[in-house]
């Protein structure tokens, strides 16, 4: 399959998943929100659906990745990965969402906050890649 076509198909599946979660459970399929919700004290019911969603995501996604035979390795070195991980966790928690919560679901319900957030994180990500790949000699990642 052409990579653009599989990208489109995968995107539609992500949209269908987000629709299912909203239609059945009334929840936004934002991965950072679902995962980090586990970090705070909440009832058993809250905990269970979050674990179920993330379990389904990791098991089915992990198997699919093996079947397709695609790499999930980042080119970044480990100290950069640690710093990037901390920033992603901190930033998505502070900003109330990531690529899925703001980008896919937020835009889907035409939330102005999510549209602004998506423009901002795509812009800073592009600027970061520009600096890492084209400004820093040798690259930091």
């Amino acid at each position, binding site marked *: 399959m052409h990579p653009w076509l599989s990208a*489109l198909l995968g995107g539609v599946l992500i949209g*269908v998943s987000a629709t299912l979660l909203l239609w059945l459970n009334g929840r936004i399929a934002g991965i950072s929100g679902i995962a980090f919700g586990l970090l705070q004290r909440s009832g058993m019911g809250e905990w269970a659906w979050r674990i179920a969603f993330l379990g*389904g995501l990791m098991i089915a996604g992990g198997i699919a990745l093996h079947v397709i035979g695609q790499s999930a390795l980042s080119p970044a070195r480990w100290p950069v990965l640690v*710093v*990037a991980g901390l920033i992603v966790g901190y930033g998505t928690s502070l900003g109330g969402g990531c690529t899925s919560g703001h980008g896919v679901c937020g835009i889907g319900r035409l939330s102005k*906050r999510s549209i602004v957030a998506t423009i901002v994180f795509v812009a800073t*990500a592009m600027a970061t890649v520009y600096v*890492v790949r084209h400004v820093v000699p040798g690259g930091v990642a």
Partner: protein
Amino acid sequence: MKRILAAGFAGAVFGIGLAISGMTDPNVVLGFLDVAGAWDPSLAFVMLGAVATTTLLFRLVLRRGRPVFDPDFHFSMSRALDRRLVVGAGAFGVGWGLSGYCPGPVLVGAAAGAWTALVFVPAMLAGAWLQRRMTRVASMTPGRGQTE
């Protein structure tokens, strides 16, 4: 129980979608973000497919008034375009650009055993934990605007 099964099923569809889309490969993501290099537009097609689907179908779902297995829809009620939103999103983008990982794909990568994802995930959880702890100390209003 129905709610748990529904969440598990939706999660599985999400994970398969991420794997098929190519977004679980940080090199594909970085190829999209590298506008000054050999630009790879794949990620734009992922967003297009996903956003077109949610924009179309969310409208039908929200028209129902309530979800099937829950009395209410759970949204962030915050409407403000405040500093938290912009600083948080801006920081997230920097980390995303450094690694090529965002929260969904990196969890799939970790499940598939990619060592770089296994390094990233604990750091990401620590970052979120730190943010939540600092907010709790600063304002005593935990969870504000953090439903997504």
